[in-house]
């Protein structure tokens, strides 16, 4: 399960993507993914907000992650 990284998330992890298998247990929900990310990279705690997109849609914490989903970490957006 590939996780795309953008903006400051890319800088914190140091790459443009990572694999969910890199966590000792694969996250099963958006909430779990956020928790694991914050544990592995505490700098995420300092951000204004942290959102996750599943298959290019904003996903609530309760959304379950399925094999083959395209997941992206969405740090605070700043377009315009």
């Amino acid at each position, binding site marked *: 399960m590939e996780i*795309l990284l*953008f*903006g*400051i998330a890319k*800088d914190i992890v140091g790459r443009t993507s990572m694999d969910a298998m890199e966590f000792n247990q694969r996250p099963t929900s958006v909430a779990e993914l956020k928790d694991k990310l914050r544990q592995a990279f505490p700098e995420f705690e*300092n*951000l*204004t907000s942290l959102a996750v*997109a599943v298959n*290019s*849609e*904003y996903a609530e914490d309760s959304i379950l992650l399925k094999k083959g989903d395209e997941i*992206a970490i*969405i*740090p*605070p*957006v*700043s*377009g*315009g």
Partner: protein
Amino acid sequence: MEEPIIEIVANLDTSQVFGELSHPGSGGICVFTGAVREFTNKQQVVSLEFETYEKMALGEMQKIAGEASKKWELNRIVIRHAVGVKQVQDPVVVVGASSAHRDACFEACRFLIDALKKRVPIWKKEHFSDRSVWVSAHP
């Protein structure tokens, strides 16, 4: 309403938007252009760098255009954002709407840029002479 024009581009041409919004039923055409400002909190900006999650950004821009066309009676909508490195005074975003009378397109235009800034996955890094900062990342 006609299909909205939704794009993410490397170089933004601000001269094309009038033609895109022009419509025989539109007596009003309203456009907002965002550009690179030289100073942020009294610090001189060297350049801005934009990146996007393009697939999702285009999807969110489509949704915003759809919401605007439900709220107001519009004939045409344009939402176009630039990515890459931009210098002071470069245009980075153009949004616009056209409608029979001016009220609808003024209000829609404001909505388009406000919604874009709030939820379209585009990120801006400010490069100063001595450091770089992702805008809005930290409280």
